[in-house]
């Protein structure tokens, strides 16, 4: 009799083991950080009348890519009262590569055409776009010019 109880117990535990685990419904669990990347426009950086690097919101309806932002930056501030340090150019195609926390941008300008403060504009615009699309704020940017030595820096007005 006791035999039977013991074996029933054993079979019961096995059955429990077979049914007790698996893919039943669960409660809500938290995972990784939520995605980001939507935006009503792009953030470009120009200089105001006092020579301060200032962010300008362009209502493009979407965030767009880093290339889009730089291309828009290269087309100039328009009639907003802000000025750019970058030499105007008709070629706005750039190449952006991201490797870890390193972003490298090939711009269609010489180092002289870009100027030092103009390079800050490029770096800040690229980083703003990168951060807004969910990138790391610790990214450093290397700018490659058509002529002149590359420069690696971060944006002075972004944390």
């Amino acid at each position: 009799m006791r035999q039977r109880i013991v074996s029933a117990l054993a079979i019961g535990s096995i059955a429990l083991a077979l049914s007790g685990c698996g893919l039943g419904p669960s409660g809500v669990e938290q995972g990784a950080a939520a995605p980001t990347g939507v935006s009503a426009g792009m953030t470009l950086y120009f200089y105001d009348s006092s020579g301060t690097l200032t962010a300008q919101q362009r209502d493009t309806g979407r965030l767009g890519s880093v290339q889009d932002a730089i291309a828009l930056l290269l087309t100039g501030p328009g009639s907003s009262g802000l000025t750019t340090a970058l030499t105007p150019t008709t070629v706005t195609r750039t190449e952006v590569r991201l490797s870890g926390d390193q972003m490298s941008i090939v711009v269609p300008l010489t180092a002289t055409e870009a100027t030092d403060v103009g390079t800050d504009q490029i770096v800040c615009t690229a980083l703003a776009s990168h951060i807004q699309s969910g990138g790391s704020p610790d990214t450093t940017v290397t700018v490659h010019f058509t002529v002149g030595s590359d420069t690696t820096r971060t944006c002075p007005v972004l944390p």
Partner: protein
Amino acid sequence: MMPSWMLRALRASSGLRGRLIGTFVAVMVLGAAAAAWAGVQQSTASLISSHTDSAAADLISRVTQVSPSVRYPPRQDSLDQLRNAVGVNALVGFDGNTSSSGFFASGWESVPSDLRAAITAQERSDDARVSTQRVEADGTSWLVIGTPVMITSPEGERAPSGIEVYAAYDLTDVGQQVDALVRGAAVTTALVLPLAVLLAILASRSVLRPIARLRATAQSLAAGDLTARSESAGVDELAQLTRTVNEMAESLQSSMESLAQMEEGSRRFAADVSHELRTPLSTLTAAVEVLHDVLARADHADLSDDDARESAELAFHETQRLVALVEDIMEVARFDAGTTQVRRETVDIAEVARECVSVRGWSDDVRITRGPARSANGRSVTVRADRARLDVILANLIGNALTHGRAPVHVEMSTRDGGVSVAVIDSGPGIPPDDLAHVFTRFYKADTTRTRAHGSGLGLAIARENALAHGGTLTAENRDGGGAVFTLWLPLGEPDASETPEEDHR
């Protein structure tokens, strides 16, 4: 009907072996099942966890990838674009508008309410995160992942965009993997079973073998072999028990030996006393006989003193009685010593009974009859027995019946149970029930006040010993109509080819 092996198994299961094996197997299988269960649980948990993490990472990556190209605030086509990027089972909602497909075909209703509440809460928190939940739908397990889409400022501050994205992943594949895990665990547990049985049998054998040896020893002891011992090896409880049993047998043997010696001594003493008494008694008997005769013949007045004659008469009878008593005691002593000899020959019991009665002058009081069941061939009732001893038995029974019961005494002979039965029935009041059990006890007197009764008090005991020496029985009982019945039963005995007397040591 149950097959014999099942009955055997049933019997075995109720014994110590069965319980040992059962417990052992149960423990092992339980252990294996518990280990397998824990393993499966852990594996399943990590399988689900890794699957969930990779699905969430996939969703985040898809949303992150497409978000910069999605118009904001989104229109219906933007929502569709986002939904397409996420996958087939997806729902994208913004401000009352939704774009849904597959699992979420019925819109918000298909989103688990717990999950939606959690997403709403996440949107408001500083650190918005992806939320996951497993649900059951149409018998299939689904992993539903929901997340708010955030707007990040260039400074890195995040704010809710109002867009919520949900994606569902079919867990059938994972379920199959879990099933495979469970199957593997079940097979492992099942494989443990024969191993457990094997180990249990080996273990039970090591326990039960000493027990079987002990049992054999105890049986030998019970059968009278006091030299039986068990080997004891080791220091466990069974070895201790074995040693204890051996010690017990040892002390039993020594006490039995001393008891046997004492008994032997007392028997020898009784035999010696009787023997020593016989010689002076013989002399005394002769002297008293002479005295008796002289007194009987004497006619002279000075000697014909009645008192003296009476004394001589008394001395004569008491001496006769003393002689008979000593003879009886010696007979009993011979029985006790086992030196009695039974000389078997073919005798007719009826003839022996007639002779016994006529020689002792009891013919008037005794009727010898044949019972209704005669021998098949109608011959006289014959057995293989010692004629002299048969005479002693019958004389004792009939004498006892005449003395303690009342005449007439009936001696009935019949054949029964492959032997001959002789019933001696008296016409007295019967034996008191209290004494019935003791009538064959030596020196037992039914009436304690009549200490000077006739006989030695050994007659029935000797009759019984004689009956036993022939392989027969002698029993006493009371008849319904009054009167004691002593029934002697003797086996017919194998007729010997040679008629030489055979010796039978009791």
